[in-house]
């Protein structure tokens, strides 16, 4: 049997909460005094599952094959992942577009009753025949998990049959409240099955750059370019990387983690196993986090002077256009939301642009979030709304109305039907958001969008909001079961 790797669910991390909402100052106080209780919502709208996150990481490894041990429906997300990964592959300069490589066991009623590891092994063989991958990942599903199919044993058996590494991924959709657990599950499998015990020759100028999957190619390339100032090369893994790139991860001199919930685990493991130092920074969007990125490179490589000189030069370069943008956007009331890091970075960026934060949605409340919220509070006060959820549109709609939000940065469809313009920051692949140019790009786009919200207004006037007025008048956090401590 392939060895069992048990990934800790994100919600079980110390000091990590995934359900809550209220005034940010109060939430932070409770967090800091150790009396924050996680609260589940008794009403929810659809979310993402753990498996989708694992799929997003693993299908993008260039010469891999994913085998879904699931009913055919659990492969649905590949239609969407394929659409943008074709594009990003080209933008990243990784060659011609191609479809992602995967196959599914198409679990049916019979399989659910009798188990279907034989079918799984056959699917791996067929997938191997079609794609000749360098590594195969088996992705578990809700159904395979509940019926208890032993994918570890199947992995071992298939591996012997095809002579290629077969790795089981325990990403059952229901296993965690936070889909980011799926990222950890994928990374743990990479470390445990691919990297463990490998000792590639050290490459002193190589730096691992771990970006969340939602990062655009232009952002990745910009960060790699800045790294070049310090004489270093970026190993941008695992997205659009080859198995060889992944095997080079332990060869790196350092790691940069551009997210609070993506790759932190992996960077820590690399430090423990290989002594590779790392820095966790937020997504390098907005002045503070971009500076942070540059400074952390300076610190890691003892080139603080290079970092400071570059920061000063770049600040001077964008000063004037940024001032122009501030004039256009000053005082606009903003809600930012999305994944944890993107939500916080874009909130900081909104501040750079002179906008006012009235609400912030983040899937997780932990030490990193509390620290960043503290930074935000210095500029925006500590009264703004903090919504700890994996995007619940009904709460956001309520908040947008109640707090008279002028602009949404995050999942823009949430506000569109309410007549409020917004910018979609995830799933946008056509522009650069990170780095100093990213500040101007995002700022200009936000200014353009907020200058002409006519389409949103037309949609609002046609009454496209699905909720009754009664809901919009209620407390947005009515469904937090306050008494329930987890």
């Amino acid at each position, binding site marked *: 049997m392939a060895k069992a790797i048990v990934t800790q669910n994100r919600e079980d991390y110390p000091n990590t909460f995934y359900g809550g909402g209220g005034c940010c100052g109060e939430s932070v106080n409770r967090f800091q005094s150790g009396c924050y209780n996680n609260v589940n919502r008794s009403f929810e709208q*659809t979310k993402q*599952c753990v498996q989708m996150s694992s799929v997003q990481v693993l299908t993008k490894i260039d010469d891999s094959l994913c085998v879904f041990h699931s009913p055919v429906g659990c492969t*649905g*997300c590949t*239609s969407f992942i394929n659409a943008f990964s074709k594009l990003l592959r080209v933008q990243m300069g990784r060659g*011609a577009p191609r479809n992602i490589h995967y196959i599914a066991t198409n679990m049916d009623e019979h399989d*659910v009753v009798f188990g279907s590891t034989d079918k799984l092994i056959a699917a791996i063989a067929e997938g191997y025949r079609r794609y000749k991958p360098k590594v195969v990942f088996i992705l578990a599903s809700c159904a395979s998990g509940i019926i208890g199919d032993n994918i570890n044993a199947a992995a071992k058996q298939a591996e012997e049959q095809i002579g290629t590494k077969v790795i089981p991924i325990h990403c059952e959709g229901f296993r965690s409240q936070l889909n980011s657990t799926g990222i950890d599950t994928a990374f743990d499998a990479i470390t445990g099955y691919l990297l463990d015990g490998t000792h590639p020759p050290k490459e002193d100028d190589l730096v691992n750059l771990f970006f969340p999957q939602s990062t655009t190619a232009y952002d990745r390339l910009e960060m790699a370019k800045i790294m070049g100032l310090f004489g270093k090369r970026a190993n941008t893994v695992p997205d659009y990387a080859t198995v060889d790139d992944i095997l080079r991860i332990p060869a790196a001199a350092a790691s940069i983690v551009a997210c609070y919930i993506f790759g932190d685990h992996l960077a820590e493991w690399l430090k423990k196993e290989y002594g590779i130092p790392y820095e966790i920074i937020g997504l390098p969007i907005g002045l503070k986090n971009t500076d942070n990125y540059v400074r952390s490179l300076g610190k890691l490589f003892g080139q603080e002077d290079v970092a400071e000189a570059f920061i000063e030069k770049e600040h001077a370069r964008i000063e004037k256009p940024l001032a122009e943008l501030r004039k256009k956007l000053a005082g606009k009331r903003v809600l930012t939301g999305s994944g944890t890091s993107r939500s916080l970075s874009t909130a900081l960026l909104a501040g750079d642009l002179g906008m006012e934060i009235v609400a912030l949605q983040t899937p997780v409340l932990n030490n990193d979030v509390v620290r960043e919220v503290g930074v935000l509070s210095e500029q925006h006060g500590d009264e703004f709304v903090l919504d700890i959820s994996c995007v619940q*549109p009904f709460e956001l709609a309520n908040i947008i109305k109640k707090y008279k939000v002028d602009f949404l940065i995050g*999942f823009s469809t949430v506000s569109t039907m309410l007549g409020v313009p917004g910018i979609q920051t995830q799933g946008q692949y056509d522009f650069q958001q990170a780095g100093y140019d990213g500040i101007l790009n995002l700022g200009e786009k936000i200014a353009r969008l907020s200058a002409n919200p006519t389409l949103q207004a037309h949609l609002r006037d046609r009454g496209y909001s699905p909720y009754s007025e009664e809901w919009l008048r209620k407390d947005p956090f009515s469904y937090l079961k306050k008494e329930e401590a987890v």
Partner: protein
Amino acid sequence: MSVKAEITSCVEQPRIACAIGGIYTALAIDRVLPILHAGPGCQGQAGATLAGANGGQNADTYLESVIPSTNFSESDVVFGAAERLSHVVEESLKYYDADMFIVSDGCVSQIVGDDIEEVVRTFEGREKPVLHASLPGFKGNNLFGHSEILKAIVEQYLTKSDHVNEKQVNVWGIVPFYDTFWVATLEKLEALLTELGFEPNIIYGHGKGLKAVDKIPSAGFNLLISPWVDLDIVKLLEEKFDTPYFHYPNIPIGPTQTADFVRKLVKYANLDEVGAERIIKREEDRYYYYLNHSIKFIFTCRVTPREFYINSSASQALALTKYLINDLGMTPRKIFISEGVPEELQEEVRSYFNDVQHERPEDLEVIFTNDGGLCDTYVKSEDTTFRKTAVFGTTWDELTAKNLKLPFVPVSAPAGDLMVGVKTYFAWEGAINLAADLYNDAANKGLGTVS
């Protein structure tokens, strides 16, 4: 005649969603809200293939992200979550502006044995109807789910009408969202039926909703336009409301099929045949005017595609095959039907492919499969240097066609990351759109030039 089915033990490149995709049929009916008792990602999985990556669609009244869901967690798997579902339904009734709610559950709920029917029973007699439909992915694909949703409406909501409107015809067989072009197809079909003298009743799309659903039992007959999907529904309606049905095996594309469709339908319903002939003549004249208008372009495409592969739904495959053979004079290479047609219906579906002006229709290779990637392996193995076979398929086939420089038209889910707009290939005008898409792609790939 034998039915050729290639069974592989596995599938790739989904052209279908699982049963939970049935919620898209509910979402296509204005102001009908599904409530999910399923894993957190189930809607997203179905939506990618059926909506988002299928012509850039999303649900209209209720954007998918607002659908209430119990989002099964690990403890729910152990202890069940029926009680939580009951609460979610109660709150949805309070705060969603909807005319009907359909509680739908997926794999997890079904395996752990939650009884949604029992939960829904406690909502009987409320102001708005609350129905239930079980849509576990291991039981079938989105077409099974589609059927379960319609059955739920017929069996749990509709009652027999005390009058019959002979002119009213309900339209079935076009699966919303899954059929990429459903909105515009239904609109055009509605206009044609109206001109022929019917009172079409369509439940999906803009401005229909429950008032159209309520009229279902009073129809003179049900019109089924598909090789097999919804056959169970029209039979159920016949059994329940004594409504007869007229079955035409596919959406008509182009002059030959559309004239055939109109003539058969008008004859069946005893309507004005002379008037129908007038419409056929007018539209055929218009069709050939447009075709003539670009005939030089078509024939100066020096490598004008003469052969084709299809990898699509049964309905689209049949419609295209007939149009491409009967009207454009092309020849099929292989036709893959990748939507899991039930085995007992495959022979009948195959037989409809014989209705073509081809010397040996029985030679047409029609392959039933669940494996969307199968077609790809054939296309890739072809020597395409001088043989520019056209590929009609999904976004999954697009790259293969592009890399081999073969003309390609997306015709089936997932049609791709594009906006479908008002496009349809239905009838005469639709056929011009289809021909244009085909020859444009050939020209864009450098397969011909305009002289």
